[in-house]
């Protein structure tokens, strides 16, 4: 278990199928064509000294340390830039090479501070290693001019830049260009004068374009770019591979530890979702795990106006169980429910829904996916037969046209965005459908061929107009449709979209997208080669969210863009385990694996395993629970890892619902906003403190591994198990692997999943069953899961949420890179440096009409409520549209969102609210009252003095 850095083969692996055999130091090696001599040697166990090469970057050939001799060739070529050839005979160690390498090293070291013993990277520095590898013992020249003693840049909260230690290998610059795609760094000057700079020479890292992804820090072979934590704590001594708990990309990391202390999270090169890359959240923003606001002891109170009282776990469980039983006896079992979390593991989620179904005796369980991707489940199940995306992330490497609709991947799914941008820089074409000019529309070396800046709420109309163009211009892949889809349904759909009323021209007044531009985009998607669609919450969070998902599926089927690499329909999932929470049976109408609760055979399977009868009727969804609560018939709620008060729409209604309940149990890391209305608080554990699995947006099930003891004493699955036992259920799981075994027994698509298999494979993409024992990276290859693909007519039905004289603007919401959803975690890290408050984006014309200047306080009002925040005047949004994020509780953006929702799933219509903006001079009464109530509610009674 001692610390081993990740293997570095020097140059990237070649994807060629052709094999080449050569001889290196007398031994034969066979590698794919296109492999470098350096990598071939390294794979065979010979590491050639190197400085400017690393296997996450294309080789560059600048340091001249990796020289080799090749029989029949003159000179000493650099092994990192020389590809293997059949029959090549290479020598990596000769006296001549040793002398050359020593000379190179000597030059580097003569201009390097020799403070190795006190350097933060001591023992983890490639320069130091290579000096050893080439046998450098002394430096003959004292350099007259050096780069020593330059000012350090400490501005980034997570890493330092010490230019005195820089060897100008440009690995950082290339990492920022090639891996991250931000192009924040440059090499300024030439020769001896060259140095690395973040933007202008006056800029520091924090003030630059840098998004703090950490790729440059990882690429740096010296201590020039180094994590502040390494400086503070020291170099790690062991590592454990685990999965990021932030977003649905599901990056895997090595948690590098010193004892029980986390030193740093380093993206794992073998991670199949992230391929060694990360974003600022997963890489650096884990400080919340040790934040002083974490609640570590259970707490109870009889009513929400009382202060909290700390109790032992036993008392908390006993009290919770007695309250739940009392309420069940008094109001009936349907008065109870639970909410699972997309942030918790599959195993934890599975247990919460099991507690509701088997313990509470009803199906009142829902999950936060209700408010984000429930329409994806409905739409893709209806059309394709599976409630999930069709591709793995690698697939984008083969895409020719990428259509992004209602997603902002550079902010929401940054690591996947970097991979997408890499493909775009290689020449793939881009279509963006979004009311806002997102960063993707125009960024360094990338420009969308078409940006369809539609009016919020008109997705279905835009997609129908695209379909109209494809069908009426004869661009349908008829062979695919005839073979793979139901032809009659296709005909009906084609007739519908072909109607003149669905043409881009007729719909232009509704969508505000110029018809010619829309037609051009449609042609590009249909005829530009492999077309892949990526979408996010800008698709689902609408009154026609489910219809939009089906409209997207229709387009993919009509153009034959499904069932192979490079194509597909890909929901970009918000939270780390949205996919998993949905898979695990968190919805009130479904058991795990998306089987309807009314299906007797499935129910019997569960009843056999669980030993209790199950209710065959669907339960309440979150909004329905809140309605039932205000009606006085829903009285108790167990909420795990979810902050419905802040994240759900129409805050006032949520608050009224919670206030009407008699027992709200919040199981979380922090006293979140929902906890202001709670009677029992069960402290949660972080992803670093527990074992389990998360499933990312590619259906990839990945291990979450415990790297430290839970500060609160129990892993979350243990808390749920103890609560269940206190309620009289006979649960005896000794480890989450046993929960996964039960999931596998009960869920056909998980049949072949176990912790042992995950340990062996690293990850598995469901379905993992007899037909696909190693999982399914790409779905619907030979046929759709449901049999024939189903075209569904999706008529545009305008939302009931209309602008008018009182509320003339449309508000749409989203999130930004450095913050995560309700911000409970990221607000408790230095990420606040990038986003101190939620801002309202407003177009200059709308701002001027209202006398609003950049930075002014404004009042944002809708028919549901009003709040205040600061305005930023920008052309990113179209006239008539305003935009904000919802990361900060005091802004309470959801005070203004309404309870209108998707017709099929009740997913709230966050993306469209009619609002008015006016100048303001401070918080609204609601904000002030809310803050006072929150302060009151968070009081914790002083512990009684010890005897």
């Amino acid at each position, binding site marked *: 278990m001692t610390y081993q850095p990740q293997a570095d083969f020097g140059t990237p692996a070649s994807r060629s199928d052709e094999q080449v055999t050569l001889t290196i130091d007398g031994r034969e090696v066979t590698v794919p064509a296109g492999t470098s001599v350096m990598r071939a040697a390294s794979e065979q166990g010979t590491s050639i000294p190197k400085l400017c090469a690393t296997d996450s970057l294309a080789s560059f050939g600048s340091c001249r340390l990796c020289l080799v001799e090749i029989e029949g060739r003159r000179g000493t070529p650099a092994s990192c830039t020389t590809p293997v050839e059949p029959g090549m005979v290479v020598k990596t160690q000769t006296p001549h090479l040793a002398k050359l390498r020593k000379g190179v090293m000597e030059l580097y070291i003569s201009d390097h501070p020799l403070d190795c013993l006190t350097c933060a990277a001591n023992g983890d520095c490639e320069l130091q290693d290579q000096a050893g590898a080439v046998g450098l013992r002394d430096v003959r020249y004292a350099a007259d001019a050096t780069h020593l003693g330059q000012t350090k840049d400490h501005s980034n909260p997570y890493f330092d830049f010490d230019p005195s230690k820089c060897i100008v290998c440009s690995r950082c610059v290339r990492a920022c260009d090639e891996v991250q795609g931000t192009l924040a760094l440059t090499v300024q000057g030439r020769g001896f004068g060259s140095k690395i700079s973040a933007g202008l020479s006056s800029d520091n890292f924090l003030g630059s374009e840098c998004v703090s992804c950490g790729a440059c820090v990882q690429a740096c072979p010296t201590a020039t770019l180094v994590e502040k934590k390494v400086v503070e704590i020291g170099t790690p001594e062991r590592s454990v591979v685990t999965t990021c708990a932030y977003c649905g990309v599901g990056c895997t990391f090595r948690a590098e530890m010193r004892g029980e202390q986390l030193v740093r999270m380093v993206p794992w090169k073998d991670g199949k979702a992230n391929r060694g890359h990360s974003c600022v959240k997963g890489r650096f923003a884990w400080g919340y795990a040790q934040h002083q606001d974490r609640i570590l002891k259970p707490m109870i109170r009889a009513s929400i106006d009382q202060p909290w009282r700390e109790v032992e776990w036993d008392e908390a469980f006993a009290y919770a169980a007695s309250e739940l039983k009392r309420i069940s006896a008094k109001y009936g079992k349907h008065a109870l429910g639970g909410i699972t979390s997309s942030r918790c593991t599959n195993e934890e989620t599975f247990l919460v829904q099991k507690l509701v179904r088997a313990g509470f005796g009803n199906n009142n369980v829902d999950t936060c996916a209700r408010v984000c991707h429930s329409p994806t489940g409905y739409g893709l199940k209806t059309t394709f037969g599976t409630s999930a995306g069709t591709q793995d992330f690698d697939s984008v490497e083969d895409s020719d046209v990428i259509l992004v609709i209602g997603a902002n991947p550079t902010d929401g799914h940054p690591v996947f965005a970097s991979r997408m941008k890499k493909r775009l820089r290689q020449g793939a074409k881009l279509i963006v459908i979004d009311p806002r000019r997102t960063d993707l529309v125009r960024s360094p070396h990338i420009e969308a061929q078409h940006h369809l800046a539609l009016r919020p709420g008109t997705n279905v109309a835009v997609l129908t107009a695209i379909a109209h163009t494809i069908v009426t211009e004869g661009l349908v892949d008829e062979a695919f449709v005839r073979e793979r889809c139901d032809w009659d349904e296709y005909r009906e759909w084609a007739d519908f979209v072909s109607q003149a009323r669905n043409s881009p021209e007729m719909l232009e007044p509704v969508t505000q997208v110029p018809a010619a531009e829309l037609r051009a985009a449609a042609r590009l998607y249909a005829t530009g080669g492999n077309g892949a669609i990526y979408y996010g919450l800008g698709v689902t969070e609408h009154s*026609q969210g489910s*219809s939009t998902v089906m409209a997207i599926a229709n387009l993919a089927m009509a153009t034959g863009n499904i069932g192979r690499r490079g194509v597909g329909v890909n929901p970009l999932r918000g939270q780390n385990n949205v996919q998993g929470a949905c898979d695990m049976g968190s919805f009130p109408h479904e058991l795990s694996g998306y089987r309807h609760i009314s299906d007797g055979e499935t129910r019997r399977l569960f009843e056999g395993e669980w030993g209790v009868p199950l209710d065959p*009727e669907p339960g*309440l969804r979150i909004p*329905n629970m809140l309605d039932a609560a205000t009606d006085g018939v829903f009285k108790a709620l167990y909420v795990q890892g979810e902050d419905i008060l802040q994240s759900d729409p129409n805050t006032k209604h949520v608050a009224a619902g919670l206030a009407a309940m008699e027992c709200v149990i919040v199981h979380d890391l922090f006293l979140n906003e929902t906890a202001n209305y709670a009677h029992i608080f069960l402290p949660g554990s972080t992803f670093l403190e527990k074992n389990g699995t998360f499933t990312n947006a590619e259906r990839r099930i990945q291990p979450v591994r415990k790297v430290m003891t839970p500060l609160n004493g129990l892993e979350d699955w243990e808390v749920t198990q103890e609560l269940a036992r206190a309620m009289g259920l006979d649960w005896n799981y000794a480890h989450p692997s046993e929960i996964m075994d039960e999931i596998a027994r009960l869920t056909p698509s998980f049949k072949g999943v176990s912790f042992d298999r995950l340990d062996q494979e690293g990850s598995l993409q469901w379905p993992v069953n007899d037909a696909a024992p190693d999982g399914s990276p790409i779905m619907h290859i030979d046929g759709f899961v449901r049999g024939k693909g189903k075209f569904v007519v999706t008529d545009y039905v305008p939302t009931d949420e209309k602008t008018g004289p009182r509320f003339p603007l449309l508000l749409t919401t989203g999130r930004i890179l450095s913050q995560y959803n309700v911000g409970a975690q990221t607000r408790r890290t230095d990420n606040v440096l990038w986003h101190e408050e939620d801002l309202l984006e407003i177009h200059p014309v709308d701002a001027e009409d209202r006398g609003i200047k950049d930075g002014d306080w404004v009042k944002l009002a809708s028919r549901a409520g009003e709040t205040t925040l600061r305005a930023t005047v920008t052309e990113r949004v179209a006239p008539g549209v305003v935009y904000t994020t919802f990361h900060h509780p005091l802004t309470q953006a959801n005070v203004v969102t309404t309870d209108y929702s998707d*017709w*099929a*799933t009740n997913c709230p219509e966050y993306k469209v609210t009619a609002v008015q903006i006016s100048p303001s001079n401070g918080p609204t009464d609601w904000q002030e009252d809310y803050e006072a109530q929150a302060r009151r509610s968070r009081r914790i009674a002083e512990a009684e003095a010890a005897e």
Partner: protein
Amino acid sequence: MSSTLDNLVRMANQIAANLQHEPDPAAATAEHIHLFWDPRMKRMIFDHDGTGLSPDAAKAIAALKASA
């Protein structure tokens, strides 16, 4: 009307409006409500006199109620 009932009426109408292209919109609406609404929501809309419901939504609910 309670706000919950308002919501249910709006939801039923929305479902019917989005299923207009099904061969039998009322039957499709009934099926959707059957699959996704909890028993109390169904009871509430069954007990409602139909005010505010679109023709297909009303037909769907009448059919569901008859089969309940």
